[in-house]
């Protein structure tokens, strides 16, 4: 949405296998949930900062994603309310990708810069895109079976929220929540 935003997803388009911090590349399985892709950073926070990517292609995938995000919130040290906020946001975004985007992926990244800990979710789909993001963020706006609170609600539940979309070019939503504020 804002120019200059560091959309992590941008660097990963077309490179669904390996990406590491600092230019060094390393691949390692990082989740007990057997994600489609696993990777581990090579920087000083390599042990804490890692990500997993999950397919969102069917209803069962929605449940799998919720489990995976829940586990990640626990690893990130979130309390029960923050866990619930993040898992709920993940559920909304994954459902959007499944229903409106015709399926997509959700990436969970544990963040650990300088002792802080957080969680970043990147939800991508290759669907029709969102023609008018501002309208889509309004409560009550819906084109599907929900209540129209998915996108705007996910924004309120997270500390940082970015959307990149264009008609015919799919939608990428990146949301972050920290556990220290």
């Amino acid at each position, binding site marked *: 949405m804002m120019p200059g935003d560091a959309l992590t997803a941008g660097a990963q388009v077309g490179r669904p296998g390996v990406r590491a911090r600092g230019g060094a590349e390393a691949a390692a399985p990082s989740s007990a949930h057997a994600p489609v892709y696993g990777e581990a950073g090579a920087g000083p926070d390599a042990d804490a900062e890692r990500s997993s990517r999950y397919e969102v292609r069917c*209803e*069962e995938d*929605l*449940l799998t994603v*919720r489990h995976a995000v*829940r586990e990640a919130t626990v690893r990130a040290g979130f309390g*029960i*309310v923050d*866990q*619930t*906020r993040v*898992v*709920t946001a993940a*559920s*909304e975004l994954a*459902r959007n990708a499944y229903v409106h985007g015709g399926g997509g992926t959700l990436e969970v990244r544990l963040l650990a810069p300088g002792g802080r800990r957080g969680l970043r979710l990147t939800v991508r789909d290759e669907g029709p895109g969102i023609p008018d993001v501002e309208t889509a963020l309004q*409560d009550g706006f819906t084109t599907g*079976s*929900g*209540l*129209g*609170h*998915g996108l*705007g*609600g996910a924004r*309120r*539940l997270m500390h940082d929220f970015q959307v990149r979309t264009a008609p015919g070019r799919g939608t990428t939503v990146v949301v972050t929540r920290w556990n220290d504020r």
Partner: protein
Amino acid sequence: MTPPRPTGVPILRLGDVLVTGLLNELDDTSALAFTAELTERIVSDGARGVLIDISRLEIIDSFVARTLTELTTMARLLGARVIVAGMRPAVAITLVELGLRLTGVETALNAEQGLTALGWQRMPHPPGPPGKARP
């Protein structure tokens, strides 16, 4: 039209009240099947009240919220009063922040209070062997 597939969620009848609950693993298809099954049971059992325990739900997203709101409306149209019981505190906080108020959905702190609101009361004395008076 095939009948709704069983959801695996028991619907118990206590007099004119149906007692049921939602599982955390309920997917969208099962949620819709549950709605169909519950409304059919309201009619076939002549239920006047429905208690839905949601204490096992770890999250309520907009889809589940919509399911609960629609169920409540459908039941009311069929003459039955729905009480949703046992919401976790973290779920309530998240729901409000999400912008969902479950307008029109009656709630109770737990299943016992929900059943009381529907006319059921705790027995004054638990049943025991005949002839043994309780102190």
